[in-house]
């Protein structure tokens, strides 16, 4: 698509999801030790931690698989 040197959309998606995964996983880890004052419903399930990891895994797969190659 659009010839050599064209960076795939999947790379951009991977980069953003990786960044989000890192941020949300880190937040989840922090909340393990320091629970928030106004905890949401079901906060005992630590959704930030496992959902952050899901984002990180998906993001890394796309980021690595579609990383732009030198021409």
């Amino acid at each position, binding site marked *: 698509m659009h010839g050599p040197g064209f960076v795939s959309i999947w790379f951009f*998606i991977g980069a953003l999801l990786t960044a989000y995964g890192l941020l949300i996983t880190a937040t989840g880890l922090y909340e393990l030790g320091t629970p928030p004052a106004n905890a949401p419903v079901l906060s005992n399930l630590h959704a930030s931690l496992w959902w952050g990891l899901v984002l990180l895994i998906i993001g890394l797969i796309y980021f690595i698989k579609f990383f732009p190659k030198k021409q």
Partner: protein
Amino acid sequence: MTEKLLTLSPVDLVIIGLYFVMVLGIGFYLKRFTKTGEDFFLAGRDMTSWIAGLSFVAANLGSLELMGWAASAYQYGILATHWYWIGAIPAMLFLGIVMMPFYYISRTHSVPGYLKLRFGEPARALSAITFGFMTVLMSGINMYSMALVLKIVLGWDIHFSIWISSLTVAVYVFLGGLLSAIFNEVLQFFLIWLGAIIVSVLGLIEAGGWSGMVHRIHTNFPGQDYTHLWAGLGSFTSNPMGIHWTGIVLGLGFVISFGYWTTDFLVVQRVLSAKDLRSAKMAPIIGSAFKMAVPFIVILPGLLGLAVLPEHLVGESQAATMPGAHTYNEVLPLMLARYCGPGLLGLGITALIAGFMSGMAGNVSAFATVWTYDIYRALIRPRASDNHYVSMGRWCTILGVLISIGTAYVVMQFLSIMDYVQALFSIFIAPLFGTVILGMLWKRATPAAGFWGLLAGTLSSLAMFLWVHFDPSALRYIALSSHAQNMAENMYRALWSWIICVLVTVAVSAVTKPKPISELKDLVYGATVIPSEGAVSLVHRPIFWAGVVFVVFVVLNIIFW
């Protein structure tokens, strides 16, 4: 509402900020690849079926889709799912298998462009002008709903939200045209799913699964059926929407759905960007599979709201007289607030912003194309250079955003966002579907009939809308029942206006001269040779995957009957 539902943490703000950086970065990156009109308006006709398909669905996933349909699910129950299943899937499959070959082979750049080739300039001018009008209205509604979410949830100033989000869309579409819009829509598609599905997952856990949710809804709202798709549609009074199954099947499932998914240029433009005919046929089929799953992130949160929220939400008019009451439109933000802490909240808000931007970019890029090719080039300056039209498209993007912003301030006066959208669809889209489908499938339809049928259908739809608006008792004639709600009225108005369009088109065709067959080549069934798909295996044929999607669609309707 006078106070915000929650406050963002620094990590939430970083997540939202990263999103804005990424979409703008994509726009700047893609500018170098959009030099010609084909690049800017049709993304170089170089998209794979997956990218075109995801973009096709994402452009329809505005914040209206997320917030408005969650609100409708709270108000009408699972009946709102009809807008995703019977109100989308058959039409999307029909577009891919039956209609796409004609759009694609004719090499048209737009739906009004197809009408020009098939019926001539008057039909094109009428559809282009009504489409341009509808598009900026839709864009304004989308913008307003986004700003409303941010005001309710975060307490952000409504004007700040409108201007910042809109100008971001304007910049990236200005830079990269449809290519930039499509790339960002695919990105936004991922963010919408990953940001919104967490509410459904956690909601189901809290409610005790599907059966637990249904039990809670029956306890909270005794005597009302919110959880059956078809069982309550035998009469106008046995379901929360006040609609009969004929309205859902004929009005929504046939006219409005086929009208929107097969003739609304906002979505069709994404498919026209496909790199070849097979990709163009596959894109709506791929899109339909994802569309079928959208209720799990949109309708389910509304149903879960019925089950787990401690208070009963009310309509906008009731909320005005009940200080502190929350409205239907707030159900998704309330559910986000219920389950999402720092980080996840930022992701959920980003999903809403992404939904807004994908919907708005869809409107703006389609508006720029129709304005430039079907109004400006057709009626104002027919013989300019390609560079001139690209430049016009870029500036038209800015103009479209500014008009949409003005429209957003106008639509703030309307009480029910989604009902208004459906009214717009039925007024403009239903008759257009009548004209396009007769144009594609009936060689005898004449150029004069195309124009007069479209005009008669549009005016009759507008007249019916105004009749009921000024005399609510007319509802019993338009919607066949005085118990019908707004959405039911829209379904039947769409049906009548489509029938009027078809009858006028047939009648005028009978007394006017058709085009010779040689001029209908690549435009009409029976006068067009559809290219063979060659000797490919079954799993590479679009018809196979359309069959798979249709079977799943039938099974889902039976499960939730």
